């Protein structure tokens, strides 16, 4: 056990303004950044606002940017930093700030509502669902998502372009579309909902330029780009850019 004193810079303020404040704070063996933030609350700044819940990387509440990188505070060990390094902690920079390290993540909840839900297959009652493990594997990977919104935060489409927010669902919710489209029993298509097409037309799949930052920051290690976004783009290609399909729809339209 060897404690030491670390130098922290923590952003404090609210929508009216704020800045980085310096703190000297004790660090002990095995601690994570969230422990240090808690120590600051208990000893120096009782009103330092921070979101957290499980402190075990399962709930996705304590998202922040540590030395400029979007991370979970509870899963960032202090041992990854040098002892003389200044550690900067700021709120997520893609969302409006509420106070200190807390941001308004309402954008994500709005987007969640815009994705049509699972459509249960007709004529299959509860208890009668039969799905093979290999058929649910893909969607299960996406359902590991803890909704920390780090991917939404790091995605430059909205991080750097506030004006894109209405048109773009963000990696998390495009992944949700992929999850439902790959669900072996989702019956959206039978009801006339083409999830592949809406991904492009309504959820802004085309904004994604697959630069993979969402995958880089995902604390659950979900391969968002390779397993969700690109397959979704390929599925959209099936629907919209296959020349034969395109030709068929043109002719069909003219005939009508």
């Amino acid at each position, binding site marked *: 056990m060897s404690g030491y004193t670390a130098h922290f810079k923590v952003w404090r303020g609210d929508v009216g303004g704020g800045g980085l404040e310096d703190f000297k704070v004790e660090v002990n063996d095995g601690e994570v950044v969230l422990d240090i933030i808690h120590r600051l609350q208990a000893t120096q700044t009782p009103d330092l606002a921070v979101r957290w819940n499980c402190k075990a990387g399962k709930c996705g509440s304590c998202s922040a940017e540590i030395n400029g990188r979007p991370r979970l505070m509870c899963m960032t060990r202090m041992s990854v930093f040098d002892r003389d390094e200044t550690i900067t902690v700021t709120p997520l920079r893609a969302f409006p700030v509420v106070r200190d390290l807390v941001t308004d993540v309402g954008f994500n*909840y709005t987007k969640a509502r815009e994705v049509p839900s699972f459509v249960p297959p007709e004529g299959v009652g509860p208890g009668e669902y039969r799905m093979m493990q290999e058929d649910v594997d893909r969607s299960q990977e996406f359902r590991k998502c803890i909704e920390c919104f780090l991917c939404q935060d790091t995605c430059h489409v909205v*991080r750097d372009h*506030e004006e894109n927010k209405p048109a773009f669902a963000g990696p998390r919710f495009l992944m949700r579309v992929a999850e439902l489209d790959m669900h072996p029993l989702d019956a959206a298509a039978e009801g006339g909902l083409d999830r592949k097409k809406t991904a492009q037309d309504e959820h802004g799949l*085309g904004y994604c330029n697959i630069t993979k930052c969402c995958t880089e920051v995902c604390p659950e290690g979900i391969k968002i780009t390779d397993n969700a976004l690109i397959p979704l783009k390929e599925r959209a290609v099936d629907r919209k850019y296959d020349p034969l399909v395109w030709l068929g729809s043109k002719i069909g339209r003219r005939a009508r």
Partner: protein
Amino acid sequence: MATGTEPHLNSGGVRTGTRAAIAVPHLRTDRWWLAPAGTAAGLLAFIVYSTWRAFADAHYYAAPYVSPFYSPCLAERCEPMHAGPNWEIFGSWWGISPAIIILIFPLGFRLTCYYYRKAYYRGFWASPPACAVAEPHQKYSGETRFPLILQNIHRYFFYAAILVACILSYDTVLAFRDENYAWGHMGLGTVVFLINIALIWAYTISCHSCRHIVGGKLKHFSKHPVRYRMWQWVGKLNARHAQLAWASLVSVALADFYVYLVASGAFDDPRFF
């Protein structure tokens, strides 16, 4: 409190008025610029080299080796290659280097490749330069409109890339001859070609479009066990798509350079048997 908030429409990225007031575009302390800079440098080097070689119109055939940049050779002006990939589809009217005709396809394949897109969007266009580093552009519409919406035709370049890879495989088979076209010989060039073709195939097969076509588009893997196995196998390769993209880029340039060295007489192909 409520679950919804209206997005603010004033542009400004991370410096938008409602966000935490931090003046700098990023707070990263690591060497985040290294990866995009390295990517840009690597791609630039290849562009310079390949432009030179593509327009050189010389030193691309040294029996039994044909440079992958010039294969198949589709113009009348091509050097005659015995039993080689000569198909004079383009007649005598084609006045410049025949490499240009065929390079469109591998170029298009790589240009629309999901990995290369990431690489050059980051490296050349800084969109974004690195994760959580603000990009310099005022507007961004991604791949939603012309010209970038054309990235969606990657699928068709993939089909073309399969053909190109087949032809390069044929060239590699031809490399098991000696300079007098007698079969059953092998030289250092054959090894270079073998490595190159293996990497070209690995890169082509590991393509995301390929992964989609062989099985990714299916809803029920359990009903298509063979395609499921193929999808899994392509998926394993696909995880290394970026490495394969670089390895095959280097190997194709090396294979061409080897042919150049031999054809220009700067180097003598060591024969094994």
